[in-house]
């Protein structure tokens, strides 16, 4: 047997391809020259040629039967097309559901880890502040005007009192003006209408209240002027109010019963005149029996009209310690408001104003001005609300992930089924 090793430039493959006419044209001439000089290659080529000849000599066998497609195969082909379509649909659905499941689980995981701060905003704080219950039992309506005032640039207590005084004066003068033209219908109106006729010089009055009432307040009028909303007209009447209050107070020692008509007027009118430096004792809502006030001067029965400013809230507290010596020695009511109001009795105006502001915030949700306690409570509420929302979202994502996983399993099953049916 001949052997074609590396010493030949022609291989068995070249001879086989040359035999079939498939050798590269550029290699045909060199191979033919080689064959002229190589006996082994000529023998190899001969055997390849004979083998091919024997194979080519095999007869073609006749088909034993026809292999045409029967009619049943047509139905099968249509079914196959349906399987193909179903396979494509399930494949796309499986991919989409897999992506959706990954996104849902990722979102749930991020919420669980707290990396998604989706709900942190001031609105939560303000919302929390608005829902805080009113510890003072004072409706929001009563302090609506005070809240509006709280949003304005901060003022001193004196300025606020000056604002309150004109307001009180305006409120009182309205019924007073009406009463002057017609018969008054209530005691408060009667007191007002009767007072101007008996107006006396503040200097003629006696008692500490008189002195306070008549003490000029240099910053009252300038501060009151920018207040607007009707207070400007009332500024000039502040003195009249003080005089009326002094008159009422002067009548107080004469008897308990006689004080009743003027009591309300006195408390309402005198408060704006009092300096903020006075000790602020909350008496609007709290007054105990230890206070040796005339029965008529029941500070719980404050004037019926609604105070419209911070100063009005503060008014009872300012008035109480100066009405009588007993009041100044009265034990302070143990209320949150009292504790807040009695923090700095000797400090200047600002702390009291802050206390008043704090009261407003606590009662009507003036969230724009944040102090220590409201901020802490509001922050707690906002944190709870945030946690609740995140828990809700986590529940939603969990349910969604479960649904997507279930549909994904069904889609995957359909994908496998259609793939199997396609191969059949």
């Amino acid at each position: 047997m001949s052997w074609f090793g590396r010493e030949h430039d022609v291989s068995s493959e070249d001879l086989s391809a040359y035999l079939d006419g498939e050798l590269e044209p550029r290699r045909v001439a060199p191979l033919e020259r080689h064959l002229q000089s190589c006996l082994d290659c000529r023998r190899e080529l001969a055997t390849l040629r004979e083998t091919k000849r024997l194979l080519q000599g095999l007869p073609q066998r006749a088909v034993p039967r026809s292999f045409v497609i029967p009619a049943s195969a047509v139905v099968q082909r249509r079914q196959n097309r349906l399987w193909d379509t179903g396979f494509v649909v399930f494949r796309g659905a499986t991919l989409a559901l897999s992506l959706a499941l990954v996104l849902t689980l990722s979102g749930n995981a991020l919420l669980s880890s707290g990396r998604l701060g989706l709900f942190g905003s001031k609105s939560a704080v303000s919302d929390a502040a608005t829902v805080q219950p009113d510890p003072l039992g004072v409706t929001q309506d009563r302090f609506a005007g005070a809240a509006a005032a709280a949003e304005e640039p901060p003022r001193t207590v004196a300025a606020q009192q000056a604002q309150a005084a004109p307001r009180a004066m305006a409120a009182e003068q309205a019924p007073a003006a009406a009463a002057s033209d017609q018969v008054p219908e209530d005691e408060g109106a009667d007191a007002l209408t009767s007072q101007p006729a008996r107006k006396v010089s503040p200097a003629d009055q006696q008692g500490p209240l008189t002195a306070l009432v008549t003490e000029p307040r240099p910053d009252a009028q300038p501060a009151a002027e920018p207040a607007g909303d009707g207070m400007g007209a009332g500024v000039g009447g502040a003195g009249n109010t003080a005089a009326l209050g002094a008159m009422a107070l002067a009548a107080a020692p004469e008897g308990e019963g006689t004080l009743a008509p003027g009591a309300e007027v006195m408390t309402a009118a005198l408060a704006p005149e009092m300096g903020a430096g006075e000790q602020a004792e909350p008496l609007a809502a709290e007054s105990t029996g230890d206070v040796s006030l005339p029965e008529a001067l029941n500070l719980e029965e404050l004037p019926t009209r609604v105070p419209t400013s911070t100063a009005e809230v503060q008014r009872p507290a300012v008035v109480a310690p100066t009405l009588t010596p007993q009041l100044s020695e009265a034990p302070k009511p143990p209320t949150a408001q009292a504790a807040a109001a009695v923090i700095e009795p000797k400090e200047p105006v600002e702390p009291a104003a802050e206390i008043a502001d704090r009261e407003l915030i606590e009662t009507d949700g003036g969230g724009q001005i944040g102090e220590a306690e409201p901020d802490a409570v509001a922050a707690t509420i906002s944190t709870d609300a945030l946690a609740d929302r995140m828990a809700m979202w986590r529940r939603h994502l969990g349910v969604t992930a479960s649904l997507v996983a279930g549909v994904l399993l069904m889609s995957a099953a359909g994908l496998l089924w259609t793939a199997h049916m396609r191969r059949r």
Partner: protein
Amino acid sequence: MDEAAVITSAQQGDVDAYNQLVIAYQQLAYNVAYRVLGDEERAMDATQDAFLRGYRAIDSFNGGSFKAWILRITTNACYDMLRAAKRRRTTSIDDLIADDEHSGMLEDDQETPEEYVQRLDLSEVIQRALASLPDDQRTVVILSDIQGLNYAEIAEATLVSLGTVKSRLSRARAKMREFLSAHRELLPDGARLYSESIES
């Protein structure tokens, strides 16, 4: 027959058009299946399966040689059958008895080797030579030397490169030559000259 138009009609669902293609290529497909499998029954099954597969996959034909396309489906059907037969052969001794390659030897214990050889014809000898080849070499030499396909058509039918076709065909012919040389007594008288020319 305008083969391109018939193929288009078949792709549109015309089964009669496809059957025209079946009639045109069924003998080619059957003979390839027969030479690859070495058995008429299995060849028929493989051929029928191939044309059914072709009908279901006619939409995937994107031009080129339809002959190469249908032969690819046929050889794949044959390979599937060979793999199934090998799995059965390793598990069942009955398959050995029914094996065509050895059935002739076991028919009569009294037959001499000379008588056995006389029963054989050239086709059977060549078929036995082909059976000794690996499946991929056998397929290439059948498509080339029995069915007359060129290297490009063989490459398209078997999904291999031209170089692979060339090497497989070279090795297949070499093994065929070795088998025939070792069993030259089985060759007919016309082939003996071939044996004598090699030794000279």
